[in-house]
């Protein structure tokens, strides 16, 4: 089949944006190599929750990271000054920088940008400071925790840890699509020439608040997350961070950097419809905006990494929206949340990293825990086992409370 090259191939290298470094903390693996193996094997990050007392909940599984050693990664900022989400952010940014082959000195030589997406910011600290208040009164809140709570600390932690001054930094608090918001923002920052590099991604820490909120809404699965399955029962909350190094193709070529994928474009929109329920028309429109921005047609897309939370409502609405754009020719559509749980603000950035690795390593990660596809979803979700594939263009969906949709389109970088 003749393939149309994405519009970006007609742009100059200075106007193209590539991913050259990956920082990954996930419940199925820390670092690029472990993460690839986890994705290839269809590893599950599900375990009984240990980070807070789950007495009284009928079930309490989640996707926590049990082997995070912040001191291995965070060398400059005193750990006590960072909450868990800031630690994830700083550690993943350092890992992405090291993976890109750039040094702190290299980064200091240029204008840079840091954006970290999050749903809940320092949620673990909020849990703890509230517990202190409940136990011994408001006078007893720990000042160290109080100083860590502002969401902007996540992005500021990256600058402090890498000792960067000439960086604009923001924490994008657009809930569960924040990772895609952040990568899209980095793409624009590079293309407008505002910065030479951008460290972008998302982070969230496991917390009582989020688990409880979803539990109360009846959307926590008792055991496993089963996206697109007829008997799916909901999400499992998770945690982690994914941060990527973005730079222009020109910059990457000049230094001979390894290129994981090219950001071809992205789309943002808002359902403006309901505080929590996704809206089919809004999601479809966002996909349309993203594909147009990337200059690709639906038939060019080889894989969709869905938001795919595993709730009844999301998976039906999202697959219908995809079908609105793709008509009868749906590419394979997977959900990484089957393995990672819902890592909130990190979700779409971890998914973007997984898509980039799928492109470079030549395989499609599976949707695990899959028994029987829901006839209302009707997707080939690559059940349970990864498959080899030559992927050229991948669409990564991020949906969120507030109707904050963000879709990123990634492509394989092929030299002319």
């Amino acid at each position, binding site marked *: 089949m003749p393939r149309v090259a994405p519009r970006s191939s007609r742009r100059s290298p200075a106007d193209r944006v590539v991913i050259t470094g990956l920082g990954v903390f996930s419940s199925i693996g820390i670092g690029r190599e472990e993460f690839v193996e986890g994705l290839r094997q269809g590893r599950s990050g599900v375990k009984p929750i240990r980070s807070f007392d*789950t007495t*009284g*909940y009928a079930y309490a599984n989640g996707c926590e990271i049990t082997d995070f050693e912040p001191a291995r990664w965070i060398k400059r900022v005193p750990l006590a000054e960072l909450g868990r989400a800031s630690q994830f952010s700083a550690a993943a940014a350092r890992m992405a920088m090291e993976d890109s082959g750039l040094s702190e000195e290299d980064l200091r030589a240029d204008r840079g940008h840091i954006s970290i997406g999050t*749903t*809940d*910011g320092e949620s673990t600290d*909020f849990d703890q*400071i*509230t*517990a202190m*208040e*409940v136990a011994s009164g*408001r006078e007893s*809140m*720990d*000042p160290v925790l*109080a*100083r860590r709570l*502002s*969401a*902007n*600390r996540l*992005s*500021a932690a990256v*600058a402090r840890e890498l000792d*960067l*001054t*000439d*960086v*604009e*930094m*923001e*924490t*994008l*608090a*657009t*809930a569960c699509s924040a990772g895609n918001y952040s990568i899209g*923002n980095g793409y*624009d920052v590079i293309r*407008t020439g*505002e910065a030479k590099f951008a460290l972008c991604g998302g982070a969230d820490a496991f917390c*009582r*608040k989020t688990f*409880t*909120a979803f*539990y*109360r809404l009846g959307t926590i699965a008792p055991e496993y997350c089963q996206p697109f399955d007829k008997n799916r029962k909901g999400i499992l909350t998770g945690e982690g961070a994914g941060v990527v190094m973005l730079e222009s193709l020109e910059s990457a070529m000049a230094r001979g950097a390894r290129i994981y994928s090219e950001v071809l474009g992205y789309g*943002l*929109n*808002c*359902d*403006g419809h309901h*505080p*929590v329920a996704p809206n089919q028309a*809004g999601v479809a*429109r966002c996909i349309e905006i993203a594909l147009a921005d990337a200059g690709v047609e639906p038939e060019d897309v080889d894989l969709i990494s869905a938001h795919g939370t595993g709730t009844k409502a999301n998976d039906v609405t999202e697959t219908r929206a995809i079908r609105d754009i793709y008509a009868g020719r749906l590419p394979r559509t997977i959900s990484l949340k089957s393995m990672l749980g819902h890592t909130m603000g990190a979700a779409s950035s971890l998914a973007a990293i997984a898509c980039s690795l799928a492109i470079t390593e030549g395989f499609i990660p599976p949707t695990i825990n899959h028994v029987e596809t829901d006839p209302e979803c009707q997707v080939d979700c690559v059940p349970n086992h990864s498959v080899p594939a030559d992927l050229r263009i991948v669409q990564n969906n991020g949906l969120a*409370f*507030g*109707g*904050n949709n963000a879709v990123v389109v990634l492509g394989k970088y092929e030299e002319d």
Partner: protein
Amino acid sequence: MMSAPDNIVITAWSAVSPFGIGQKSFTDGVAIGRPAVSVLDRARWDGPDERACLVPGFEVREVLGKGTRAMNRVAGLAVTTVGRLIESVDPGRTWAEDTAIVLGTSTGSSQSTMDIIRASLTGERPYDVEPSLVPYAVMNCAAGQCAIWYGLKGPNATLAAGRPTGLTALSYARRLLLTGRAKRVLCGAAEEYSADRAWIDFHARGGGDAILGEGCAVFAVELASAATTEPVATVLAVDSRSCVDGDWQAMTARCVQRALAAGGSDPAEVRAVCPSGSADTPGQAERAALAGIFGPGVPVWDVAELIGETHAVCSAFQIARALSAVEHGREMAGRLVMITSTDTSGAVGAALLRLGESR
């Protein structure tokens, strides 16, 4: 001096502030120059402070009417402000997919977040939390509510950058406009007063007195080259950086100098400076940097002394303070104002505005 083609302009704005609801309350309050501080009703606000700068009489249901029972204060402030802005310039509600929202925050609502956690910790069952509160305990709720209320289906972003958030939001808005992702951006920030925020701030600052403020300020921002109405101000430059060595004065000066250079201006052209007004170490260093660059005689517009420490919305209120000068008379028309901000997290920012003509 002409605007660069990629400059952005502010074409309309509104604010809900301790001076009251709407732009006129704000400009009048600034003109009178009396601090909008009041003694807190301890039955309503169980915080550590005696006094605060609250939006007078602001109760969500009274201001916005039915269907807002669960809506928290920060969303109420944002929905009210955006509504006022839209009423003033788009009463026919023609804005939809071409209009973005970019709203700054610190933690969304500490109150809503902690209410859920408290309910979980103290309820008979750990999941006895109020489901209608759940979306309000997520930081993007205020921006999402604005989209729902006014049918704004363009990009909808919530961002946090400490006190300079209002400046970073302008920078993000400019990027959306330059890349054609929106035709106009409603850009600003919101912060609510709550007992929980007050206690967190009390402990974070190590105790002692403080006067916290609250509110929301939102600006309609367009590309200068595509603006449909006469601007109230042109944003000549926004520059933000990170202070990692504690030398806030040097980093503030660097941002100011870079903003001047990007705006093609020199210090002598700047007729007023508008600092964060924070009493902390970065805030004091910020003032020293401004005095060093612009001299001791430059007028200093300190909005914090009028409306308190407003955290996430602080720099948006500084922008509003600058814009209100246009409404006070013709003498500031066409003049330059430098706005600066610092935050203990390390964020530092400066924005150079050229004020427009009074309307």
